[in-house]
């Protein structure tokens, strides 16, 4: 049995910013090797794990897409003893001052994000929030040492250690979207002793936070018949109380909207009810904000489902999740896949 906390701790301490996924990919290669029949890496760095079905060939293919890349920062400029940064993915600059970070230069350098005093900033800033272009990173090196160890384009990641909170809640950075990769891993584990007709392609996709690059490309090579995209979704919390947030720790989200094939939504809903796995309809009136935006429109089009794991404080270093929801997501996907009959695709249609 996989120890979920242990797995998460291993994944969360590895960097793997968009475009620079190799550290997390290497960990996953190790974790997925015993759970899959074949592992391969796409030309832009997504990890593909194939677990063959036991049905008669040719078998249908279901793809699970969970992005493994993380948000973070990148060095744009070096000024004396200080580093200027830009974002990779979306970061609210208001959470950065005082944040511990690691600058991945010629060696790993611990540093801190510095908010310069007002008199050194444009007058218009006043005592208001300080934009990223005015923030600095200090790694405690003098100018001569600094240029030897850090150069433009080096990546900068959050350094916050994961924290176990009460009630099986976990806080840390990059839970978006390593928790979904963990759920995919639990799904693969659950399928080890289950009969499943379809081939399962588990994809830890690259570059979701920037270009959806992995999601645009992996399905082109794999050509799945259907896809399950799993990502985090908003959990209710401070400032997140409206219809687009789901209760924290009280079940998974099932995406509903144009990115999702309605027949797949129905099938997942039915499965969740049958297994008594708590879920909420996660409304996505326009785009889902997930890999499904890309996967759905690759080549001739791919029917997608979107599973969400509710997460608080998204894109901060203290994202918070309930382990229960990760397990629920993993189990729901495994049961859905095990139940896919050879002719299941005939039911994924537009007839009502």
């Amino acid at each position: 049995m996989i120890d979920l906390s242990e797995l998460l701790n291993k994944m969360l301490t590895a960097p793997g910013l968009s475009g620079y996924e190799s550290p997390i990919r290497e960990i996953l290669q190790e974790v997925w090797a015993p759970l899959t029949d074949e592992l391969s890496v796409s030309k832009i760095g997504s990890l593909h794990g194939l677990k063959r079905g036991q049905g008669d060939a040719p078998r249908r293919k279901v793809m699970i897409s969970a992005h493994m890349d993380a948000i973070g920062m990148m060095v744009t400029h070096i000024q004396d003893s200080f580093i200027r940064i830009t974002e990779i993915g979306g970061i609210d600059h208001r959470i950065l001052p005082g944040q511990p970070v690691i600058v991945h230069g010629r060696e790993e350098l611990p540093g801190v994000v510095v908010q310069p005093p007002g008199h050194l900033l444009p007058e218009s800033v006043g005592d208001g929030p300080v934009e990223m272009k005015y923030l600095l990173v200090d790694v405690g090196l003098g100018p001569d040492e600094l240029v030897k160890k850090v150069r433009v384009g080096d990546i900068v990641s959050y350094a916050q250690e994961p924290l176990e909170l009460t009630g099986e809640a976990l806080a840390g950075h990059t839970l978006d979207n390593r928790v979904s990769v963990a759920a995919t891993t639990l799904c693969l584990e659950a399928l080890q002793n289950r009969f499943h007709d379809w081939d399962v392609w588990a994809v830890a996709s690259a570059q979701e936070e920037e270009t959806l690059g992995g999601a645009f490309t992996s399905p082109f090579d794999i050509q799945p018949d259907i896809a399950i995209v799993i990502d985090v979704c908003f959990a209710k919390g401070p400032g997140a109380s409206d219809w687009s947030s789901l209760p924290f720790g009280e079940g998974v989200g099932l995406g509903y909207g144009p990115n999702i094939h309605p027949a797949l939504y129905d099938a997942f809903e039915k499965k969740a009810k049958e297994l008594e796995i708590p879920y909420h309809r996660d409304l996505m009136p326009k785009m889902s904000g997930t890999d499904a935006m890309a996967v759905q429109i690759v080549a001739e089009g791919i029917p997608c489902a979107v599973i969400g794991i509710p997460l608080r404080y998204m894109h901060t270093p203290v994202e918070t999740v309930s382990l229960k929801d990760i397990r629920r997501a993993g189990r729901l996907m495994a049961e859905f896949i095990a139940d896919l009959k050879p002719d299941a695709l005939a039911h994924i249609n537009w007839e009502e």
Partner: protein
Amino acid sequence: MTENQKIQASNIPTIGNRQIKLLEKLCNASAVSGDEQEVRNIVLEEIKPVADEIKVDALGNVLATKFGHGENRVRVMLAAHMDEIGFMIVKKHDDNLFQFERIGGIDERQLPGKAVLVGRDHLPGVIGAKPIHMTTADERKNKIPVDALRIDLGPEIGEKVKPGDRATFATRFKRFGPSIQAKALDDRFGVAILIELLKHAPENIDLLAAFTVQEEVGLRGARVAAYRFDPDMAIAVDSTPAYDLPHWDDEDQNVQYNTRLDAGPAIYVMDRATIADRRLVTLLSDAAQEEEIPYQFRQPGGGGTDAGVIHKTRAGIPSISVSVPSRYAHSAIGLARVDDWANTLRLLYAALVRVTPDLLAGERRG
């Protein structure tokens, strides 16, 4: 073009009572992006007797093929989107009123005081507004935010409506004099035109008709449709705004009209998503001149049609768009002319019969 190549009048598809009835049915159906079922069903019913092949794909596009005869037929894709702008119910509040989100580009100033139809059962509802008596002069200087608006379906709506249901404006189709008033003329005009062209398909080409989904949320259906069809060329058939209204200050001329009613089909040179292949601009404008069909160039500039994704598909597909001009698109009531619609249909037919492999033989020049 020689005399004997000119179109025989008897072949030309026209707009009569039957076509107007069909447009009425199409406009009155609800098909908010991602939920195009009602229009899809109408389309399938209409084209089943005439198309050689029909497929409904993973996104819900209807892809219909009508093969021509003879050698070296050019494969021409026509795309018209089935979806329309509208709303999704996102939350039921304790007072039995429903919060909603807009889908597609709708100006929030178009919302207060409108009637809507919710869900597949077309349940009637209203978007109310605070009584003027209770508003202040200052308040009336600001737009009413969408978050503050609710859809009211009456106190006993119960469980008949739930979050996720779509809604549209309740406008019913009207024909009067030279004009039509309806919702969703963008792009039921195109859908109706494609149906007629399938029924009167020119024999010199393979006609690949894509009735697409999710155009209003990012041209999503057309992308996969074009990939599957892999055509030699493509025409998006859409409806584009006519802003042919006076400037508030009558000293000033309106130089941003986009298109004008009564001026015929609007041929695109460039919008934000596509720079039309000039060979196709010439094809259409020459066909119009030869057949004496009025036409206009849509003012180059903003907006986009399905051509925006089609032309970038695979190794590239020469593409253009043609639209029926209509006023007040993306609001509750659009207004357009029957003649502009009929002339768009005629123009497309006239252009299609003129398509030969020579058209695309050379290099793109602009």
